[in-house]
């Protein structure tokens, strides 16, 4: 618990996280509400449109959190190697504490995005577009925080231990890049159903949409084309990924090798 307190404080005072995780994503919510074609006529259509934007932006915000975590672990590699040897800190404590901290911050950011989505899109549509399942939606943000933390740590520690830190600035953005790919692929040519179920990124997005909209998500979010998908499968898939990544994360972190952060310098 001790580490959680300091980590939460550090995360909540991270300017890049607020700038990109909230400022940048709120900007896109604004674009969705006031600049792009919001031509929904009924409340149900408006709620569906809002839930799509909310789910896309929610997934991207989670990806931004992963990038912040990646740099945090990158800078801490020698400290971790030292702390596991010469302090009370254990790999499991570290992973649990930071995972919990990231999940809490993801939930806070999710609550902000939910409130902003409600206010902006309700104002634009003149309907009261209250999310159907707000608590469940925040729970999905909590899980997305856990997933993104685990993914970010695994990527950075793998690179740190086995490939060298030269590629850190690319690796740190992989979760964010995947978030963009899966978020916007749902609007275009739909991905195969199995891939949508299997991808944790799609799971997060479809679950965010479902919890805002109150109905099952379709395969293609643009116009609601394709079959309606099974929410329970998304939940099971996401939990499976979290369990798998957690086990890998604990093993990797316990074997972290100290490396010079200068290795990450690009020029």
């Amino acid at each position, binding site marked *: 618990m*001790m*580490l959680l307190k*300091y*980590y939460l*404080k*550090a995360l909540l005072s*991270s300017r890049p996280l607020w700038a990109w995780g909230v400022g940048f994503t709120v900007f896109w919510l604004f674009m969705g509400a006031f600049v792009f074609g919001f031509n929904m006529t009924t409340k149900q259509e408006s709620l569906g449109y809002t839930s799509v934007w909310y789910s896309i932006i929610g997934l991207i915000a989670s990806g931004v959190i992963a990038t912040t975590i990646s740099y*945090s672990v990158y*800078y*801490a590699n*020698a*400290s*971790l*190697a*030292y*702390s*596991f*040897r*010469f*302090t*009370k*800190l*254990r790999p499991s404590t570290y992973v649990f504490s930071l995972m919990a901290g990231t999940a809490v911050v993801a939930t806070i950011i999710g609550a902000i995005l939910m409130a902003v989505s409600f206010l902006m899109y309700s104002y634009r549509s003149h309907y009261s577009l209250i999310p159907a399942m707000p608590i469940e939606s925040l729970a999905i943000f909590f899980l997305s925080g856990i997933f993104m933390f685990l993914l970010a740590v695994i990527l950075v520690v793998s690179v740190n231990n086995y490939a060298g830190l030269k590629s850190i600035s690319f690796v740190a953005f992989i979760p964010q890049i995947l978030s963009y790919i899966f978020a916007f692929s749902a609007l275009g040519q739909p991905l195969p159903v199995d891939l949508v179920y299997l991808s944790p990124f799609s799971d997060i997005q479809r679950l965010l949409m479902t919890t805002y909209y109150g109905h099952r998500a379709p395969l293609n979010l643009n116009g609601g084309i394709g079959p309606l998908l099974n929410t329970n499968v998304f939940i099971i898939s996401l939990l499976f990924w979290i369990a798998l990544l957690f086990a890998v994360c604990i093993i990797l972190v316990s074997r972290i090798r*100290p490396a010079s*952060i200068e290795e990450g310098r690009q020029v």
Partner: protein
Amino acid sequence: MIELRNLRAGYNRGEGKQALMGIDLVMEREKVIIVGPNGSGKTTLFRSIIGLVRQNGGEARIFGVDPNEIKGELRISTNLPEVYRLISGSVSDIMDMYAELKDFPSKDVYILLQEFGLSDILSKRIFNLSTGQQKMLCNLLAVSFNPALVLLDEPFENLDQSRRSRYFDLLNTLDAAVLLNTHELDIVKRLKDWYLYFMFQGRLYGKFKGSQIDDLYLNKGEVAGNISVWNTDLGTFSITLGKGSVRISNIRNLNSMFDEVA
């Protein structure tokens, strides 16, 4: 406490040039100073002792355990700055967190910080501190939390005269074994009760007493009656006691000390 046998370590894998070329050191509960020019391997030696640099040969033991196998050993601390980067927090957060991780109250380090006139840095983040303030903070973290063995890497570098003087006093009264390295010969004169080693080109030479510093002489070649022979890329040199070519304590710059005797 520390036992190093033919320790080889470096930043290159395989047979490339090593930063440590076979270090032998046995240290009990005592205070030891290692003096060497820049680039001689002093910091690498410390990193290697605590497992932050890959060992490429030989053997290292701290409290009888391989540094790479150690877990939860709270008796060892260091002022190496990279070990205090667990989170990006304020100075007070860093101090509180490491106190908890070391299972020791944080009040000691707060008192020390006040004694060293650094109370105003508590709310600052480490990257906002001056180089001297960062060094002093790490120095104080290293000696807090009741350590039995402290590794101090260039602890006097970038410190002002007043803080240097106070830190000398603190180290001389500290109830712990200390392994300290420096590239400043003058420091040995302030730590005369300590044991003394010299380090050049990844090799360690000693053991001497700090109090002998005014009696140690550097000579070119292996002269009769020497007490230590140093084989370097610049040739062979030897140390004699009482008389010789150049009195070590008179050497102006360790980085060019072999030029002074040539």
